[in-house]
């Protein structure tokens, strides 16, 4: 697997390269500022891009804007955005094009190497990975408005884990229910959120988006 990474702090950049390399993910380019991101992506067409939100020259949300711009030119490019903090607003913007292959994680998650590499692979395979922090911030909201209000508590739990990018099997393991029960819950969620029948991956993204937009 080939990756392009954008991280301005040399310490973290080198760490990321080493970490990904140790798990058979080749870093074909590592850039250190916002304007270099898009050219590097266009040149290398990697399997996944791992971008830091805060990059020179503005040190604000350069990386996020670069990710959104890159998705317009390379619609199927999977992008994982890393940040020192997560903001549900940014998660919503990243998911706005309603395609999979998007991740948004706290940098802290790098500490759990196994899970982090797993997240990179899931994004590369078209999955959606939201940081549990984003999900919990949204869970803290009392849900009383439609259409999320129609979901049962268990269905909301399933949706939250889905938003983190877990597979049906992983959701089942997390909630200690069978995988079959999970797919039944997911079917109900799709129905209650009025999501039209289409391929499963896309509906999952739409469900998460509804969740983020609530």
């Amino acid at each position, binding site marked *: 697997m080939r990756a392009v990474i954008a991280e301005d702090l040399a310490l973290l950049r080198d760490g990321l390269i080493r970490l990904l390399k140790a798990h058979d993910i080749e870093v074909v380019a590592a850039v250190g500022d916002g304007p270099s991101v898009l050219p590097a992506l266009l040149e290398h067409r990697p399997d996944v891009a791992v971008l830091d939100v*805060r990059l020179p020259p503005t040190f604000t949300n350069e990386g996020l804007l670069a990710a959104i711009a890159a998705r317009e030119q390379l619609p199927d490019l999977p992008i994982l955005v890393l940040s020192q*903090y997560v903001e549900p*607003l940014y998660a919503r913007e990243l998911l706005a094009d309603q395609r999979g292959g998007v991740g948004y994680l706290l940098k*802290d998650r790098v500490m759990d190497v196994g899970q982090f590499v797993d997240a990179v692979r899931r994004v590369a395979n078209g999955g959606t990975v939201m940081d549990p922090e984003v999900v919990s*911030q949204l869970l803290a*909201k009392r849900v009383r*408005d439609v259409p999320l209000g129609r979901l049962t508590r268990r269905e909301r739990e399933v949706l939250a884990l889905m938003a983190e990018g877990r597979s049906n099997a992983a959701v089942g393991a997390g909630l200690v229910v069978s995988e079959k029960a999970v797919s039944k819950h997911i079917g109900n969620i799709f129905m209650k959120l009025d999501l039209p029948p289409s391929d499963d991956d896309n509906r999952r993204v739409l469900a998460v988006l509804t969740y983020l937009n609530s």
Partner: protein
Amino acid sequence: MNEPTDRRETASSRRVRDRIGRWTSLVLRFIGGVLGSKPKGPPRGTWSEIARRSTSFGVVVALLLTVIWAMTGAGYFWPGWMWFALVLPVAVSWGLRTALHTKVRRSLAVHAVISLVISSALIAIWLLSSHRHFWPIWPILGLAVILAVHGLLVPSVSRSREQVLAERIDVLTRTREGALDVQVAEMRRVERDLHDGAQARLVSLGMSLGMADELLDSDPDAARRLLAEARTAAGDALGDLRAVVRGILPPVLADRGLAGAVQALALASPVPVEMTVELPAERLPAPVESAAYFAVAEAITNVIKHSQARAAWVRLGQTDDLLSMVVGDDGQGGADPDKGSGLRGIEHRLEAFDGTVEISSPSGGPTVVTMEVPCARSSPKT
């Protein structure tokens, strides 16, 4: 008070001052020797030091004269003239200093003090000379009439401006103190949060790593457990640091400005918040932006905590030089700044920018908090 005078004085005035200082000091030393007290301070000094010494010298002389008067039969109280000469300059300097410190109608205050001193002096002269005909009444009446005319004429011209300035100074003094208080309190909070949070966790992380290092060979399982603990501590420390940073300057505010940051607040609010934003693309000055953000955040927090509202709305707007933020809800109302519901905090935050807060919250609701901050933009539109 003396410093600027000293800096401006000429060489000749310094020479005169030094000479006077030396002489008074010599005389005082002589008197001090006679009376058995020790001379104080070096022979040179500032004008106020000289004034102080001359006064004490005068008091000693007057006391001596009074003693002589008492011993020589206590007839006509001639040392009174000495006392008079002593009290007059002290009264003049004290009165003028007081008058110059008044904020409103200073010229009138000076005039009043001068009239008062002259009148008192005349009465003193009358007391010391003959008690018969009270002649000072005429000059005193004259002075009073002049003062009255001054009092009637001057205010209509200059009072308004002086009063406006004086009130402005009062407001600035108060709000500056308020702003500094807020700042100090914030710093203290940040320090405490770092100390109790991230710092403590990093210490614990270091301990776990140290212990894991020791156990690596003898008990690999225990070492692994400690490493897992260390990782958790690192994650928690990062979480603490994030919370501290959010309290100082929320990253989304730095990234997106007021509109974006308030939108993020609305998104995170458990009470649905409807947003109306009519702000120019141009960013506000950073301090105003930050104060405005925290004010809106506080208002939304109040809605969530106290209002029991089902819905809230936020309206951000800006005319040429006034930023207005209105936060409303359909809750139970009855918000009272005196009940410590954070509304005072909003007032203090905005006061430093000459901002205002108005709260309409009848019992039973709805509550509307209107906040306004003047914001002269750095580059005015043409």
